[in-house]
């Protein structure tokens, strides 16, 4: 029976034949459900990266019960500052090649607060946009050296078009969108793949306020299944649930004079 491993950066290289998956922002509800699907299918070597160690340990114990043959590593660290990210990714890569990275962290900021407090605004842009793409950049660069690996990154339908009720979050996710396009172009001739996932509003702690207002939210299990499937098929981009593809097509083509009359 494998044990849950508490990671430090100085840890020695672990040779493993198991598929190696890393989740950045592993306490995210969507990421947790992806992890459940991965351990359900096979014994994997999984590294959970997040800020809250106690929460990570709860998730690790759960995954360990679900598949006791898997190796579950926990790494509590910060990943906002570029140097922290550099250090984190190098540390993970020195342990051996990574097959898949899921970048899942994010917060849903209060748009009003972002307009009034630039500190909040800045934080929202960094956490939802700058930090995820820097993580992607760092992993992709390492993967390119061995010409192997997949990076999946969670964007949002909010990144497709700015609107007054959440453009700070939307702009950050829009940055992710554009950055991934560039990476995909750069990596087109390699075996390194980047998958962009755009979930609609999903039933997670992040959307608690939406839920309290009675807004219909997508089931997190279905979203996680879509993400796992998209990664498996190495899709460039996927909307989940799939209806958002159509909704966003319409919304993005809405003439400006109509959009400006809408309270959305």
């Amino acid at each position, binding site marked *: 029976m494998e044990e849950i491993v508490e990671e430090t950066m100085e840890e020695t290289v672990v040779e493993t034949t198991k598929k190696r998956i890393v989740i950045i922002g592993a306490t995210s*509800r969507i990421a947790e459900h992806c992890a459940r699907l991965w351990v359900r299918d096979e014994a994997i070597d999984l590294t959970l990266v997040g800020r809250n160690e*106690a*929460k990570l340990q*709860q*998730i690790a*114990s*759960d995954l360990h*019960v*679900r598949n*006791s043959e898997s190796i579950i590593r926990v790494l509590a660290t910060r990943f906002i500052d570029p140097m922290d990210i550099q250090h984190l990714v190098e540390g993970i890569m020195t342990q051996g090649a990574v097959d898949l990275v899921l970048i899942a962290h994010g917060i849903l900021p209060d748009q009003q607060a972002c307009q009034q407090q630039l500190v909040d605004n800045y934080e929202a842009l960094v956490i939802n946009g700058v930090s995820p793409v820097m993580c992607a950049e760092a992993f992709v660069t390492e993967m390119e050296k061995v010409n192997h690996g997949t990076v999946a990154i969670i964007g949002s339908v909010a990144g497709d078009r700015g609107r007054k009720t959440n453009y700070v979050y939307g702009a950050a996710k829009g940055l992710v969108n554009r950055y991934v396009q560039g990476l995909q172009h750069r990596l087109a001739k390699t075996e390194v793949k980047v998958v962009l996932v755009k979930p609609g509003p999903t039933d997670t*702690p992040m959307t*608690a306020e939406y*839920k*309290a207002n*009675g807004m219909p939210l997508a089931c997190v299990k279905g979203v996680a299944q879509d993400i796992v499937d998209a990664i498996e098929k190495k899709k460039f981009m996927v909307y989940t649930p799939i209806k958002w593809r159509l909704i966003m097509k319409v919304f993005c083509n809405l003439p400006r004079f109509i959009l400006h009359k809408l309270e959305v």
Partner: protein
Amino acid sequence: MVAVSSWGSMLREEHDVHMLTNRDTPLFSNDQLGIAYGLGKSYGDVCLNPGGVLWNTTRLDRFIQFDAVTGVLACEAGVLLSDIQRLTMPSGWMLPVTPGTQLITVGGAIANDVHGKNHHVYGSFGDHVTQLSLARSDGTLMQCGPHGQTDWFSATVGGLGLTGVITQAEIQLRRFASPWLNTETIPYHSLQEFFDLADASEEGWEHTVSWVDCTGKKNVRGIFMRANPVTEPMSNDCSARSGSMPFMPPVSLVNRFSLKLFNTVYFNRHKLSERIMHHDRFSYPLDSVSHWNRIYGPKGFYQYQCVIPRESGYDAVASLLNEIAKSGQGSFLTVLKTFGNRESIGMLSFPRPGVTLALDFPNQGEKTLALFAKLDDIVQAAGGRLYAAKDARMPRDLFEAGYPQLNTFNQYRDPGMSSALSRRLLGS
């Protein structure tokens, strides 16, 4: 505020829903009264608190530990029974007790001390809980179980969520050889025949249950089903069909005509037979039809489940079935079953030695309530009681008469816990 209902779908009222996400975080109640809410599969108002707080436990869905040698599983309270079965069955362990659905949470199974078709062998769900954690409204967390704080444990098992929010539990699973069951189907044509079959099956059969025709005015007739696990290992593969009731019809599809038709066809289709059946199909026939409660239409439905002591059981069940048949109300699935000769550990647990009758009634307002008043009289005169997890309307005196440990239980109540049911039946 969000509109929330229970499985009976009669009340759909606004609640202040708090999602619990961490089993170690104390409850933050802000001095508002609340009650735990899992999947909302209770039929009545035991899990509702209109205008107040609901602590939703469905995100407490993590396993904590599983020992495949001893079969002890620790998990959070929002884990579904179906998740446990899926996890542990490949290693030869399963839940000893599950009700007619496995799509319920562990917390709900404990708080209502649910029972199954094997009550005479395995008792109720609480009999297999070896420890549980309660989050109390004063911000404390407490552990209790059959070996420590036993009084709190007896109050919490079957305690309708009123001693605190159950956040995690440790359960002793049972070994099993195969998920397949040898089943026997035996039609019966009188109540005496039912009791004879039930008594004869108590020794030697692990699962017993019967369907009874609730429309028969002259004579009681039904189908007795009993089952034992297949002893030689067989494949675990069960290609279950699944479907859904896709929409809510404008009126209940269960009415006087469909009732008579269904009951007659159902009885005549079941002949004396033996066959091998997968545990899931035998135990949870309705789990393959999601949203089956929609069949009753927008007015929803009641379920009436009583247990009558064995001494008065025959006469009381005959009277109950007679009243129901006369009323022309009822449902497709009426269950008649004997409980084993064992008391439950919970102060407010429903199962007790005797015979239990359970059936749904489409909500037809006064007409349905008038029938229940007649049924209540029969139950009370026979010294029986109703199942709170199924109830949305029983009178307080019937509840008090049926649960003699109520006063002791009240000493263990968490003053911050309150539900529509507790205000109706316990006064607060």
